[in-house]
C-alpha cells in the first residue's frame, strides 16, 4: 500500500511511506549485500515503515482488559540485482527483506 487512504479510512498505526534506492541490503539469508543502484541502473522500492516501531496504536481505548496494542513492522521479500561481497563481481538477483507495512497487533499482558 502506498500513501494513505483518503477521507474515512484511518489506520491504527502511523507510517512513513518512502521510495528508496538502496545501495546495500539485508538478504533473507541474513547477510549484507551490495545492491546495484547507479545513475544508469536504478532499482527503486517503495517501502512503508512504522513511524514509531512498537509504539502504541491509536483508537484502541476499548480493547479488553489485559491486552496491549502496538504497531509492528512487517516485511516482504523482494528480488533485487545485487553483487556478492566476495567472489566474482557478477550482478545477480538476490532476495532482500523489505519493510512492507505496519500493523496494529494485540498482545496479552496478563
Amino acid at each position, binding site marked *: 500500500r502506498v500513501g494513505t487512504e483518503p477521507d474515512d479510512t484511518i489506520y491504527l498505526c502511523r507510517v512513513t511511506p518512502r521510495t528508496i534506492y538502496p545501495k546495500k541490503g539485508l538478504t533473507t539469508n541474513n547477510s549484507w549485500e551490495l545492491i546495484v543502484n547507479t545513475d544508469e541502473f536504478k532499482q527503486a522500492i*517503495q517501502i512503508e515503515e512504522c513511524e514509531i516501531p512498537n509504539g502504541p496504536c491509536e483508537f484502541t481505548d476499548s480493547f479488553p482488559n489485559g491486552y496491549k496494542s502496538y504497531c509492528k513492522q512487517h516485511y516482504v521479500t523482494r528480488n533485487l540485482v545485487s553483487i556478492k561481497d566476495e567472489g566474482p563481481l557478477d550482478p545477480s538477483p538476490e532476495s532482500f527483506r523489505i519493510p512492507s507495512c505496519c500493523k496494529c497487533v494485540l498482545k496479552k499482558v496478563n
Partner: protein
Amino acid sequence: PAGVAAFGRDECNEMSINMACQCSPVMSEFEIICPAYAENPKFRMSIQPSRSFVQIVCNLTDTSDYKQLPKVRIGEMDIVQMQRCLLPGYTPIAGILENLGMPTPQMLIFESDNLGMNVTRTHFERLHGLKRLRFTSRRPTHIPANLLNDLRNLSALELRANIAEMPAHLFDNLENLESIEFGSNQLKHLPRGIFSKMPKLKHLNLWSNQLHNLTKYDFEGATSVLDIDLHANGIEVLPHDVFFFMPNLREINLSANLFRSLPEGLFEHNTHLQQVRISNNRAKLTTLPSRLFANLPELKVLFLKTDLESLPGDLLEGSTGITNISLASNRLTTLPAKLLEYQSNLLSLDLSHNQLTHLPDGIFEHNKELKDLNLESNYLTGISSKLFSRLISLETLIMRNNRLNIIDHSAFTATTWLRHLYLEHNNIDLQQSLLTNHVNDPNSPFSSLLNLETLNLSHNSIMVIYYDWKILMTKLHTLDLSYNNISSLNFEDIQFISRNKLEVNLTHNKIRSIHLEKDLPGYSTDSSIVNIDLNDNPLDCDCTMLYFVQLVRGVHRPSYSKYFKFQTDRLVCSKPSALEGTSVKRIMAEKLLCPFDSPETDMDKRMCPQGCSCWVRTFDKALLVNCNNGNMTRVPRLPKRPQNLVRMELHMENNTLLNLPSGEMNPGYSEVTSLHVAGNNLTEITTNQLPSRLDLLDLRRNHLQLLNATLLGFLNHTMLRGSMKLSGNPWKCDCDAKQLLLFTQDNFDRIEDRGEMMCMNAEHPTRMVELSTDDICPADQGV
C-alpha cells in the same frame, strides 16, 4: 470542477526533466519528491487523481522550506492531507494550496507533531468551502476561540491535540456542523451551551477524555444528536437523567469506563435507542439495574461485557425489536427464565465465555427467529429436550468447550434448519442412547438435523459412527470426529451418502482395525466423493487389514474405491512389533498375519503344535506353521488346513529332523504346499514323504547324498520355477547320481541354488554344474 486534476503523466515527465523535484508514476498515482533524489527530501507528495486526493508529507526545519515545494498546478482536489508539516508562519494554509493550484479542497487533514507555533485563525483563512477538517497533533495544543471563525460551512470537525479546554465560542459559527470528533483529548468538561449553536449535530464522539462528571446540562440543546461515544472517560457514575436532553439518541457507547453500577432509568428518555455498547468496563459491574433496557421498541443491538454475574429478569422487558445481543465474556452462571421473553425478533445471541452451568428450559421459548446461538466455553453439562424446542430458525449453534455429557434424544427435533453444530471439547459419548436404544435406533440425537452441513464432535468420547450421519445427512460437508474413541472401522461405517463433498476427520481416535470388503461389484451411490482422514490412529496391522492396505497402496482397486479418498500420509502401524512405525503405504501385503489360534484358545484345544507358531496370511490364503529352531527330531502333528485357506507353509528350518513323515501318518502334513526344512539331518527322502500339492521345497543344509529317480519324477511334475533349493548337501556324484545331474541340467530354472550344489564324494569337492554325466559315470563303468 473538483476532482479533475490538471496534473498527469506529461506534467510528471516534465518535472523530472526540470530536475528540481523528481516525479514518478506509481500505479495510478504520482509520487513527487523534492528536492530530486534527496536522501531526506523536504516534501514527498502523493497525487492520486482517481481519488481526488493529495498527500503532502513534510520533513521541514523551517517554514522557509515551503519555497522548495514543486512549481506545479495540481488542479482541484477534494481532499488534502498534510502530514508532519510546520504551520506556515503567519500565512494561511490556503496560500500553500493556492501555489499548488488546488485552492478549495472540501476536506483538509493536517496531522503534525511538529507544528512550530500555535495554531491560529489565520491558518484557516480563505478555506470558506471547507466541509471537513481534521487537525491532530500529539503535542498539547492551545485552541483559540476564534480558530474556526472562517469555516462556516464545516460539517465535520475532528480536533485531537491533547486539548484540555475547548473554548465555548469555538462553535459560534459552526451552525452546519453535523459531526464532532474530539476523541483522545484531555477534556475534563464540555463548555456549556455549545449544542444549541449546532442544530444539525448528529454525531458526537468524546471518547478517551476525562469527562468524569457529566450531567444532563452538559448536553442541553443536543436534541439532534443521534449517537454519542463516551468510551474510555474514566466515568464511575452517571446521573440517571444524563441523556435527558438527547431524546433522539440511537447509539450509545459507554465502554471502557469504571462503572460499579448503573442507575435505574438511565435510558428512560431515549426511546429511539437502537444500539448500546458497554464493554470492557475497567471496574467490576456485576449486574445491571432492573428494566435498564426495557420498553425500548427500536433497540436492536446490545453489547454488554462488564464482568456481569447476574441479570434481572426484566432487563429487556417489552423491547421486542432486539435482534442482536452479545453477553460474551462475562461471569454469568445462569440466566433468568424470562430474560428473553419479549425478544421474538432476536437473531443472534452470544453467551460465550461465561460460567453458565445451567440454562432454564424455557429461556429460548419465545425466540423462534434466533439463527445464531453461541454458548461456547461455559460449564453446561447437558441439553434437555425442551431447551431448544422452539428454536425453529436456528442455523448455527456453538457449544464447544463445555462439559456436555447428556444430550436428550429429542433435544434437536425442532431445530430442523440447523446447518452448523459445534460440540467439540466436551464429554459427549452418546452412550446413553446406545444403551437405551441400541438395537432399535442406531441414530444419534442429531438424526432430525437433515440440513446439517457441519457437525464438529472432535475431542469427545464418541465410539460409533451413527447411522444418521451416514444415511440421513445428505448435506453434510464437515464431520469432525477427531480425538474420540472410535476403535474400528468396517465398510459400513464409511458409507456416507452426503452429496456435499463430505470431509470426515477420524484422526487421533483409537482405530486398531479397518476392515474393507474385497469388492462389491455393482456398488454405486449418488453421493459425492467422501474424503476420510485416518491419520494418527494406532493400527494393528494384521491380516484383516489386507484389502485396506492394498487399496491404500493402489494395488487393489475395488469398484467402490472411486467413491472414497483416504488420507493416510501419517497412518502407521502400532502393532505388531515387527511392523511398528511402518507407514500403511509401505506395508507389503504378505506381512499381514493373524495368529491361527486366538490368544484366548485354551491350551488343550490349540491346533498349532507345541513349540511352533501358526499364522493365517490372507494375502495368499495361506496357513503358516513356523517351527524353526525348535530342536525337533520329527515333524509334529500338524493342524488340518481350514477350508477357506488354499495354501499351507511349513517352516522347520534348523531342527534335527532325521526324516520326513508320510502323509498317512500326519494328515495335516499331507496338505503342506511349501516345505522349508533347511538345516536338518535328513539323509533320505522318498516320494510318499512329500505332500502331493507341494510347490516349494527347501532342502538346503541336510545330509542328502542322492535323490532317487522316482522322487525326481515327482519333483518334475510338481515344482514351479525357482521353487527348489538343494545346496549344502553332500551330494554323492557317482553313476547313481546320473539322473540327479540330468535333472539339474534340465531344470536349471527350478533350482534356485543350482550353482552352489557341490559333489562331495571326489577328493576335491566339485561344483555339480561343472560336471557332465561322463565325468561322474564314465562309459566303461556305465550301468
